[in-house]
């Protein structure tokens, strides 16, 4: 409740934010992960650089694919017609983040920079092959979502680097979905599964699958994808994929005292089936 002392500056542009970051401290976006940690004194940055009003970080553009400014709120993403059309799984994931108040403040950039393993959006970003666009003192670079998330609360971001936007391919011709099994206390994901299916008639030409919540980071699930591709998504294929996904995440499992790893691993299989059903829905 009572954070340590800190300095505060508001950046008007990406350049200003990067210049301030040279002096240390942390970016403040929606504050919905950073401020609770500071109030509990689990985090004590000496300086907060408020990036909440930088125009370059705002907004969603649809131009072949999607580009979403890092400062765009979960609510804006969930309610965007473009996102709903081009990646409905992301709209759905952002719409399931916390409650309305959290969605009004929390941002996509803040969410992925924070890299809470129980977050929702990262799972979709990994499944759908998103790209994270980053700017730092040394210039700009882009990192694939799968490489961006490294471990619990750990990403490919270097000190002082800012996420400027996230790009996603247009997957309006896929069937995609994000299904979440919320923790009854926090409503973060016990397990979250994102699927993106390219169908060729009744056959699944390509399946992209990622699991979060149950794992230290969002994990792309190659075995489950292989079990689905080329099938008609019949019961046998679904069962095979449900088994395969447990193997895909076995190395990265995470649990807590109430919802242990073993349970979450099993649930990944159950929720993969449910995600596929929702995608076909």
């Amino acid at each position, binding site marked *: *409740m*009572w*954070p*340590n*002392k800190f300095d505060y500056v508001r950046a008007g542009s990406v350049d200003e934010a990067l210049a301030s970051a040279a002096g240390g401290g942390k970016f403040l976006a929606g504050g919905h992960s950073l401020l609770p940690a500071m109030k*509990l*004194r689990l985090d004590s940055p000496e300086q907060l650089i408020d990036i909440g009003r930088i125009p370059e970080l705002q907004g969603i553009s649809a131009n072949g694919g999607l580009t979403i400014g890092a400062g765009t709120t979960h609510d804006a993403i969930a309610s965007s017609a473009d996102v709903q059309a081009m990646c409905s799984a992301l709209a759905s994931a952002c719409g399931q983040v916390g409650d309305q108040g959290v969605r009004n403040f929390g941002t996509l950039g803040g969410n992925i920079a924070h890299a809470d393993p129980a977050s929702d959006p990262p799972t979709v970003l990994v499944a759908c092959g998103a790209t994270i666009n980053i700017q730092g003192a040394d210039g700009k670079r882009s990192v694939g979502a799968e490489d961006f998330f490294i471990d619990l609360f750990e990403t490919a971001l270097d000190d002082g680097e800012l996420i400027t936007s996230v790009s996603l391919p247009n997957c309006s011709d896929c069937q995609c979905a994000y299904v979440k*099994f919320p923790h*009854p*206390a*926090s409503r*973060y994901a016990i397990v979250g599964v994102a699927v993106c299916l390219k169908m060729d008639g009744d056959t699944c030409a390509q399946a992209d699958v990622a699991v979060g919540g149950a794992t230290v980071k969002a994990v792309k699930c190659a075995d489950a994808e292989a079990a689905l591709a080329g099938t008609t998504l019949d019961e046998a294929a679904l069962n095979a994929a449900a088994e395969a996904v447990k193997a895909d995440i076995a190395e990265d499992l995470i649990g*807590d*005292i*109430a*919802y*242990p790893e*073993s*349970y979450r691993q*099993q*649930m990944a299989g*159950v929720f993969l089936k449910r995600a596929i059903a929702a995608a076909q829905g």
Partner: protein
Amino acid sequence: MSTRIFGSGIKRREDPRLITGEARYTDDIKLPGVLHMAVVRSPYAHANIVSIDSSAAEAMDGVVAVYTGDDLEGLAGLPTAWLIPDSDLKTPEHPALAKGKARYVGDGVAIVLAGDRYQAQDAADAVVVEYEELPAVIDPEEAAQEGAPLIHDDVEGNIAFKWAPFDKEASDAVFEAADVVVSERILQQRLLPTAMEPRSAMAQYNPATAELTLWCTSQNPHIHRFIISAVTGLNENKVRVIAPEVGGGFGSKIPCYPDEALVSWAAMQLGVPVKWTETRSENYLITIHGRDHVQHVDMAASSDGKILGVRATVYAGMGGYLSTAAPGIPTILHGLLYVGPYTIDSVYCESIGVMTNGTPTDAYRGAGRPEATFLLERMIDNVAKKIGMDPAEVRRKNLIPAFEDGYDVAAGLTYDSGDYPVAFEKALGMAGYGEFRRQQKSAAAQGRYLGIGVTAYTEMCGLGPSQVAGAVGFQGGLWESATVRVTPTGKVQALIGASPHGQGSETTLAQIIADELGFAVDDIEVIHGDTTETPMGWGTYGSRTTPVTGAALAKASQKLKEKAKTLAAHLMEASEDDIEYADGSFSVKGSPDQTQSIQDVALMAHLAWNMPEGMDPGFEESQFYDPPNFVFPFGTHIAIVEVDSETGEIELQRYIAVDDCGPQINPEIVAGQIHGGVVQGIAQALCEGVIYDENGQLLTGTMMDYCMPKADMFPNFELGETVTPSPHHPVGVKGVGETGTIASTPTVYNAVLDALAPLGVEQIDMPLTSAKVWQAIQDANGGGS
């Protein structure tokens, strides 16, 4: 006949200020020059305090003083105020700051007084305490075993008390002779009361007059006054305790805690006001927890379903110290309830109060009675299963028949009134019990798992006759007092000693007065929560404010009305026998034009220009009221659930509650109390539960891990009522503040276990999280995952 507001669901008069944020809580009160207190708390559940170095903290900006346990000269330890007789009770010292040893995570070790809250916290972080960690024990049954870490040197074997008032031999004989005995080890997990407003206390001391004012989050400011007076040594008439708006308590604001004593002592020491407000994390660590029983329960029955006896050994976790009322909860408020609404002739309870390295426990909504109702209802379902009888049928067979005025039960209580079968059949009818059983079968054929749970309950509330309080070691009375004061312009101030904190009593109590005296509800203010402004009272808990304070107000109002009638007769120059009264107006029989309103009479009483011979001026009456017995509300609750066997998730599909709290003063408020109580009780069954690790660290220290119930977990509740007045109460009412919590936990638990029966699952410890349910299904399948 007068029109009555009794029974009308008028809106709660307290809500506008609560909803618009205009209510003034303790933390909202600002005094110039106030110092903020932060408490350095033990990070260990059990540790010797080797040394404390506060030099760095003392040197910090804004810091005025740092005190440790050794500095608290003149501040006595906190008393335990429920001294259960014949239980070999030990009351270990509870210093306001730990001396030598810390006994739970959060035990206060030092306090810092500083100019603002941030400085205080910074300095608290800078106090260096060296600890020597000791082995800790959390589970009360383990703590009672030989070889467990000893928590207080003067509490041998960690056993604070052993209470076993019933005849063991007689009970054993019943069990030996019975056809059927079922047994279960039941865990009543620890719960966090989670009042919406965390606790807060601010003290101001005037050295010239030696007067102390303490604002604090209290359900019973008069009890706080008495304890603060005792621990500080100030005369009770020099201590004023004010409970401003209090944002819920559920029992957690009954006790007097170290923090309230510490702000008082520090304010006296420093001559400036001192304030402390807990954070939510502190609230979870240090404000009392509820429940924490390990119960070994047996029930004896005949093969045709007659319940013959119940017996239990209960290990009740007390935590690191004995909180204010703690010993009374797993004993008097628990074992005396083992008969429930049934004709059970033999009860036995051995309740063992055990010191542990957990947070102290005390009364939490229902306090002892939910733990009793649960074990009865659980065991009845076990009996039903064992003899192959429908669980509703077993209950029906054992319900006490209707009675109007007194029914003695084997546990020693005399129930006031009840008609259990009527409430029971009504609930079964609302649920469509028979039809559900058919649906359940056809759903099972499709691999769907539906279940139903039925709980018949009665409980003891409206605490209680003071004579009984004395006999059971409660260090206080249990009466209430009230003053009804009418101003010269005919507006009413009702001053009460109880201290409501969210129940809506400002509305219901005004409704009682309105009917008795003929004032509009809007002309009545109910004033509470200040020991200087209000008459003595023992507080708001145990569903007692409506029954006890309500009776005091009804009687004070009746006295006032008698006076009014005499004065009205005098003013109208009529004989009192000819005076008629309706809707707040007196008239003379036969000459309806001549009237005196109650307001006219009140004014004339104040002016006292023309009083009847011997009548004193003024228009105000006080009444002390000590109830002749408890009140015993009752009812039947039913839950219907579906379990998702793939995930273990539970969907609560329907919840039916038929409650009888006597005549309802305000049905909307009654419904609100039931809704809230039911939600809290269901949460115990499904999601709430404190988890400590093996070192006594609280793992459910925030709402991220401790699962508070959320609105979307619940269907719309289906409420029904029956009305059986209490024969001994002036307006017949019973309490309804805790019934929901008491009835709902076993109802939902039994429904879930009913659903899981085809899968072979027989028992799961609460809360029934999806992970546990899923695991139980795997285990029953003989598979594991």
